[in-house]
């Protein structure tokens, strides 16, 4: 590259990218097994968050009809187990695989995100900070591939 300022521009940009990736990697390294579970507030808070989420979902015109055939009590128990296990807590998800349980529901992206928004509102209600909420959402987001079939 002929222009020295252009070269330094590229270097500056690459440096910014490297620093950003280093932050991400080191933050990963510092994490202990159950730190997210503890940051979320443990099983009591997770139970309340899931109950609140499902209450919001049943009042949410975008998705309430998808729970018509659902045993809501059992669903709450299973989701709580799942969140607890995913965040590193002492639980074991006892439900069927996500793909199986969502088959035939023909859920779309908007509905998947609607439940995410209800979960965010429920976590707000329990005073969970945004950065902690996002850590849980990061673990749930890839489920879109098996949950959304439409």
């Amino acid at each position: 590259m002929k222009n020295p300022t252009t070269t330094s521009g590229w270097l500056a940009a690459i440096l910014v990218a490297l620093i950003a990736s280093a932050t991400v990697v080191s933050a990963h390294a510092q994490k202990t097994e159950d730190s997210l579970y503890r940051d979320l507030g443990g099983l009591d808070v997770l139970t309340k968050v899931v109950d609140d989420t499902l209450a919001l979902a049943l009042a949410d015109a975008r998705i309430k009809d998808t729970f018509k055939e659902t045993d809501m009590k059992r669903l709450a128990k299973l989701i709580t187990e799942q969140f607890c296990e995913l965040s590193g807590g002492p639980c074991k998800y006892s439900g069927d695989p996500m793909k199986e349980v969502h088959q035939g529901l023909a859920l779309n992206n908007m509905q998947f995100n609607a439940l995410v928004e209800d979960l965010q509102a429920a976590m707000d209600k329990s005073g969970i900070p945004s950065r902690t909420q996002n850590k849980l959402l990061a673990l749930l987001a890839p489920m879109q591939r098996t949950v959304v079939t439409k």
Partner: protein
Amino acid sequence: MTYTTGRALRRASVIASGAFMALMSTAASAQTASTAMTPDMGKLMATAGVVQVEGAGGGGLVPWATITGYGSRDSYGANVHYTYVGTQDYKLASYGVAVGIADRVELSLAKQRFSGSLAPLNNLRIDQDIYGVKVKLAGDIVYDQDTWMPQIAAGVMVKRNNGIGGLGAVTSVKDLGARSDSGIDYYLAATKLFLDQSLLVNATVRATRANQMGILGFGGDKGDRYQAMLESSVAYLLNRQWVVGAEYRMKPRNLAADNEKDYYDAFVAWFPSKNLSLTLAYVSLGDITIYNPKRQDGVYLSVQAGF
């Protein structure tokens, strides 16, 4: 660029704007005809980004791989925006409309007006139209949290400089040394959201001949070739409504009359709802012409409304 290609470009942009209007009216009538085409606002808050200074979905200065609007892949979204950039001696006002279709294709139209406030450039006025198309190629900014795969999109910006006013005999950017008054930018953008860190990182490579984004024309006495420019953004999600970040945008130096500098900004964006966003930034644009060597720093304010 030759006279013929310049004319072809002008024609292409007329056709593009016609198609744009047709699309908007089709979308509007389809909306009344069928509830299936009601915009679903299916994306999560802020994940569609804002609209950048050339009208494309992105940050403030940099186009991102995100498709504008809140329509999911089963729907569509659209927005209008007004952006004001004010430095010591210049200002840039732009407005436009953008549509996102099926979270796959983005069409945008922006009109920019650059003006001066310091004599002898206090009557300076340069207008530019920008037609943009962007296509998402791979990845998903939200769902790909378990891989390093970013969302990737390719885009073009067709730019037409409408000339210079308030500068006496100088009426075209060609009089300042630019080779042509229209040009096309091509870009490839990769945007990665690290939800686990509430951090968004974007890298865009743009092939361009534009001087000051095209406001001072395309190509020049120092160079007329396409050059690859890197543009990057880093943003931190404070929560669902507030995002802070910084951007860097590399620039070519084609004009002897313009010692063009790279752009920087630091921004805060506020999303009171999915229908409205406000972006406030501090921008550094460098010195715009050799006739006024003062570095131009100032404020960037953008308001966007849509769905």
